[in-house]
């Protein structure tokens, strides 16, 4: 029996995705940001193929050499190929960006939605906790966590999740507060829909757009933060090829081989700029005030 599948592609969800993609392509900032990000992801995924050398292998070239055909960005103080380390560094940055975005969204949005919907003491306590966490600049929080857990990539990710969850919690909470009193929510309760279903089906979609926009910003900030903490020696540990760590290693020799500080920095700027462009473009597309 032939099944008519034409209606499958006309569902509201599919149409919404199509129109979002069309809007993404039409918005120059979003398109540029998406292309830049895609390129970064491809580089990260294909790093083992693209890199001419093992990023941790020492002595593949002369120590602190300038760029040559064999070593496009020169070598560092251990004779490691800088270009290879830069390519593999993309993996670390993307890992941090996506881990922090996913972790802070899961915790922050969940907490904000539940407490905003339930209200009362739970809501009050969450907001006081958010106020306390907001009183800690991100570096302080990361350094505090590093003091407790010791330095490392996991420490950076955990501390950044703690730093960025409050902003998402506030966003989700304000959405829950505005939607929970709506008549259609009351109607949903009247027909027997459970609180969890109401939160997932009615409240969460209302805050999806600002959450997506906030997540792209968080991803960009996370890359900056990881680079900064690794530069201080409290983030990614050697010999992992983090861009921040490469900057730290190269600072002492920048007078002789400036490319050791120039290229990792440019890589960080590129990555963060791609997220900023994408976030800006998404804000133009998804923010109803900007649309009108």
């Amino acid at each position, binding site marked *: 029996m032939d099944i008519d599948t034409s209606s499958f592609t006309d569902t509201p969800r599919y149409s919404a995705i199509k129109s979002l993609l069309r809007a993404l392509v039409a918005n120059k900032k979003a398109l540029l940001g998406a292309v830049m990000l895609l390129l970064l992801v491809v580089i990260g995924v294909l790093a083992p193929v693209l890199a001419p050398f093992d990023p941790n292998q020492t002595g593949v070239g002369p120590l602190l050499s300038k760029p040559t055909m064999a070593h496009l960005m020169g070598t560092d103080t251990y004779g490691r190929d800088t270009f290879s380390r830069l390519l593999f560094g993309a993996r670390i940055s993307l890992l941090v960006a996506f881990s922090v975005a996913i972790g802070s969204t899961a915790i922050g949005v969940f907490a904000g939605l539940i407490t905003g919907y339930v209200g009362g003491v739970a809501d009050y306590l969450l907001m*006081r*906790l958010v*106020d*306390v966490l907001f*009183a*800690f*600049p*991100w*570096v*302080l929080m990361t*350094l*505090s966590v*590093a*003091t*407790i857990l010791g330095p490392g990539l996991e420490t950076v990710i955990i501390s950044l999740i703690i730093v960025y969850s409050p902003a998402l919690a506030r966003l989700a909470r304000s959405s829950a507060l505005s939607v929970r009193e709506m008549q259609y929510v009351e109607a949903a309760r009247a027909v027997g829909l459970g609180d969890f279903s109401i939160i997932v089906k009615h409240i969460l979609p209302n805050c999806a757009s600002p959450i997506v926009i906030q997540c792209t910003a968080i991803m*960009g900030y996370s890359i*900056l933060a990881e*680079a*900064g903490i690794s*530069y*201080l*020696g*409290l983030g990614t540990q050697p010999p992992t090829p983090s861009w921040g760590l490469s*900057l730290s290693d190269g*600072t002492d020799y*920048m*007078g002789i081989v*400036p490319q050791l*500080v*120039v290229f*990792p*920095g440019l890589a*960080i*700027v590129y990555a*963060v*700029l791609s997220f*900023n*462009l994408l976030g*800006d473009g998404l804000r133009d597309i998804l923010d109803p005030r900007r649309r009108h």
Partner: protein
Amino acid sequence: MQRYLLRSLLGVIPTLFGISVLIFLIIHLIPGDPVSVMLGRVSDPTVVAAVKGEYGLDKPLVAQYATWLGHVVHLDLGYSISNGEPVAPQIAERIPRTLYLLLGGMLLALLVAVPTGILAAAKHNTWVDLGATALNLVLMSIPSFWFAIILMLILAVHYQVLPATGYVPPEAGLSDFFRHLVIPCVALGASEAGMIARLLRSTMLETLSQNFIVVARAKGVPKRRVLYRHALRNSVVPVVTVVAVEIGYLLGGSIIIEQVFGYPGMGLLLITSITARDYPVIQGTILVYALFFLAINLLTDLLYTILDPRIRYS
């Protein structure tokens, strides 16, 4: 206005309490016995007993917190494990140095951001606007510590017009004092400038589309006056909010900048104490940073009432 201020002050109390609890818990969250954490390798039973007695470390956690808070209120932040000196004077000596860096960075950021934001809004949808927007996005994407390294490379290492590292107190010579601050403050303020300019442009565009601006223009008010007297004045309140939040980011950024330049402020003290596992210094420094950030937020609340009379009377 007094009621507004009182409300703001009362609102800070639960946050202060939460911050003090978190900072107090830092030592207790570290794996191991808090006494050995505080004293390092010292194992003399007399010293251990004395520390336990003084800080009540053999009592329940709540009692320990009360003892610690009592010490903090009397400005006793304990003694450094590294050098045995009291922590509070070490921090107090460095507070002005970090403040110079923060204020210098924010001042430079505002000096760049305000004209850029106004220009971009006034020349909306032109090449000037596009260029300013692109510049702001790039500035926001630059890590301040990397920008600091690049400026150091060019200005201090290559051209040698400014010093690379260090600090000179103002009483030793204003010229040297400012010369040592230029590169760190420029590096610190650059990404803030991008953020603030972007926001100012956005709020000014919103304000410029309001009816009262149309009326002002229709009445023949000069464009410059409309821009500065009407649009800018009404756009400044949200920018003040962001500036307050950004000072928090600057606080964080200054820690890394101080490390880059070997600048002897609170940030460098914090980093060296973490490396040395000097927990009383870590606790004391983080506490001062958090209190400072809270104070900035309170001052911002006060500034609102001056900038927007509607808040005063609401």
